[in-house]
């Protein structure tokens, strides 16, 4: 049995579209409740008519004919549908309207089966974790390098597809600090189910501090073990896919690990980021996430301990 507590704490407990924490999701949730009310009323009336109609005949003098069909089937629905059309346009426009320039632009690229996240036009690269300043509009540029994915943070906004060869733009805003679960909404292959991410909404100062920290190159390993771990990283297959700024060149085959230790999860929201999970993941990703692009790594015990020490130092 896995302990789920730490993961739920890391990724947020309930990604319900109806627990809106941003203006777009709130607008849509309000639209939902309105439509639910309308639909419930229409359904109730229809079922009552059906029930009355199903009783034995002879009880009623009223015999519905063409007038009944026109009123119930055309006139009443037409009025309701016009109302819905207006609501749809109003809500749609409300989620798009923007008085100000977005506070910042983030690039997110969907990958089988993780998320590449870039700030400052690529000066900051991270993965599977999006930080936002609370109360500010953030423009997220969405694309994909392989197949179609879809970017979805139910508590903040609806989903928008990430399509190879195209860039889609989503305006995201969180009104309350918190941790929200992001989900891949479009089937993208064998591990579509394990393609989640974390959105951390935090006050501006904290966000700035976080971004400043991410902007830095990787810290020099403190201590011999971590230094040895760096050699393991650079000397084995890790470096073929992963980049650590300051130590390696750019490499976007796998997630950037420059500040891995600062992240809440590994394996795209699947595992809480702790030493045990990291060790298991490095040695044998396939047993936990069959079909993930990361191959198993063959490391001796001491090598693994050193590597873990190094990775855990990448705050």
């Amino acid at each position, binding site marked *: 049995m*896995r302990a789920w507590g730490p993961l739920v704490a890391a990724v947020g407990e309930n990604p319900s*579209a109806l627990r809106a924490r941003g203006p777009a999701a709130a607008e849509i949730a309000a639209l939902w409740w309105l439509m639910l009310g309308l639909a419930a009323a229409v359904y109730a009336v229809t079922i009552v008519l059906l029930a009355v109609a199903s009783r034995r005949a002879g009880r009623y003098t009223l015999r519905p004919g063409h007038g009944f069909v026109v009123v119930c089937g055309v006139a009443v629905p037409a009025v309701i549908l016009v109302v819905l059309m207006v609501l749809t346009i109003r809500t749609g426009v409300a989620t798009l309207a923007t008085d100000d320039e977005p506070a910042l632009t983030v690039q997110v690229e969907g990958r089988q089966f993780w998320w590449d996240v870039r700030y400052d036009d690529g000066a900051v690269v991270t993965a599977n974790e999006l930080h936002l300043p609370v109360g500010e509009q953030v423009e997220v540029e969405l694309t994909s390098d392989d197949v179609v994915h*879809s970017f979805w943070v139910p508590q903040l906004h609806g989903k928008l597809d990430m399509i190879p060869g195209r860039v889609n733009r989503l305006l995201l805003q969180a009104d309350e600090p918190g941790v929200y679960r992001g989900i891949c909404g479009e089937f993208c292959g064998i591990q579509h189910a394990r393609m989640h991410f974390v959105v951390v909404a935090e006050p501006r100062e904290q966000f700035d501090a976080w971004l400043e920290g991410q902007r830095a190159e990787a810290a020099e390993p403190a201590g011999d073990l971590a230094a040895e771990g760096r050699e393991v990283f650079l000397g084995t297959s890790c470096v073929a896919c992963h980049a650590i700024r300051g130590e390696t060149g750019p490499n976007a085959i796998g997630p950037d690990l420059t500040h891995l230790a600062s992240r809440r999860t590994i394996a795209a929201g699947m595992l809480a980021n702790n030493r045990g999970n990291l060790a298991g993941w490095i040695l044998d990703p396939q047993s936990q996430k069959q079909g993930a692009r990361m191959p198993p790594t063959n490391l001796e015990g001491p090598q693994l301990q050193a590597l873990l020490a190094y990775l855990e130092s990448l705050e």
Partner: protein
Amino acid sequence: MTTVTGDRLEDVWATRPGLVGWLGAVNHKQVGQRFIATAFVFFLVGGVQSLFMRYQLGSPESTFLDPETYNQLFTMHGTTMMFLFAVPIGEAFGIYFVPLMLGARDMPFPRLNAFGYWAYLFGGIFLYSSFLAGSVPDSGWYAYPPLSGPEYSPRSNLDFWLLGVTFVEVSGVIAAFEIVVLILRFRAPGMAISRMPLFVWSLLVTATMILVAFPPLIMGTVLLELDRKVGTGFYDPAVGGDPMLWQHIFWWFGHPEVYIILLPAIGIVSAILPVFTRTRIVGYTFIAAATVAIGILSFGVWVHHMFTTGINLLGLTFFTAGSLLITIPGGVQIFAFIATLWRGRPVFKPPLLHVIGFLVVFVFGGLSGVMVASVPFDWQAHDTYFVVAHFHYVLIGGVLFPVLAGLTYWLPKMTGRLLDDRLGTVAFWLLFAGFNLTFLPQHVVGLLGMPRRVYTYPSGIGWDVYNLLSTVGAFVVAAGMAVFVADVVRSRWRGAPAGDDPWGGNTLEWATTSPPEPFNFRVIPIATTRDPLWDERPLDLAGGPAWRRELAHPVVSRREMVSTSVLDAAPHEVLTLPIHSLWPLGLAAALGVFLIGVMVDRTSIGLVGLAGLAVCVIGWLWSRQDEP
């Protein structure tokens, strides 16, 4: 030749004896029966796949299925239900019952009809042979590139899907073509287009829609197969193609598809309701006009499957309007049905129970459909379990319940045996309760953020209990289907004799024997009202013009049928139909060999298939047998 009975009509319509006779049979009832039986078998197979999936999702982090198997199962479930069950079952009912309802003796092109069946069967087998090859399609029933393209699905699994689906689509187009010709030119004399049964109207519109919707998909799948086999790159952005092109082509087919499978079901309901309420249908013209309106509007809604692709809001809103608009003809039909029920004296036997189930469930699905037609809400609901719940309400409510209603209504006509009312009632209530238990909770879990097409989900985020309820419900549905199948099997041996007209029907199929004679009607009926059996009982089966007597007592050994004019069904001429042919089977087999050649990249096999195609086409054209 079969046993000579001395009656020329019976002799010329008899099927040849033995296996060859069976394989070469071209009569619409044999073809229709095979279509219905095959579609039902595929339905059961697709249903079993869903049980595996539901068992897997019954608990979080289950390891019952691995992700690869799960993805294969949901792909094959969707493909099977849409391509191998829902479309064929509608056409199958059409092939069997439209000629009977029109007073015709067969389809206009019996050999083509037989070819349509074999193409369907072989296409289905082709798709399922992927299990034997260990390379099962796993990119969803909609196969979006690039995931389905050469780079991300390098094995043969998508070739099985593309070629198999194309095979089946060809069958669908052929059946549609025949149904249109049949309905326009082979109605009983006097059955003006304004007197056709509503079931026939629904099939006419459905078949026309197939002719418009399927050829583009066939083209789209051929382009994708070319991308995969010869690297054309129609859908590859790296060389100037666009994955969005596939999405537009697929949904241009894919949304009309929903109504293609829905309209025959509406037609079945329109056929059953008057008979089981002992009254004429209310709003015949409204229902027929609504059917035509749905057929047209359904081609203006495809982008509502693409609300999250980044198309601008103004563009999307047009498709919201189109999608909302289509609920109006839908509403007209529903309230015409309710009015009919109201005016009549309902007889609550299984056919009517299933019709009531249809109304209760389908209206619910229609309302959730209105919700997802709203662009902003769909941004949240799209590709979640909310949508899964919505379209199962529409498809199970709108198609499965009417199909089961149709089977309980018409099976006695096909077999001459009645089903058991008690078993039918038990099956209905199990299905109805199990269905709602399965799919009602899925609306909720979708709103709670659970996406579709996931083989597992994390624990502790509120999704567990809804999934467990769903899984329990799925097994209740399975129990209901088991009772239904048991009832059908039981009736085969133990069912009470049905007689010609067990329900007191209004349309011409009830004027003949159960099961019908191979020629359907010895004397071609003449229809002068919409409910001929109610207005003209007994039917006038004597007299009339000379051709009518000659068709009843032919002087030559030919299968003869009378064609009529398009609008008012005035008798036009007597045509001769072919009676037996193995070439349809041969042609379908040759096509299969060709596709296998494409599949395994063996030119030699492909050429053998092409040569076979040529031989069969020539044989078909030169060997027409009009006399026994």
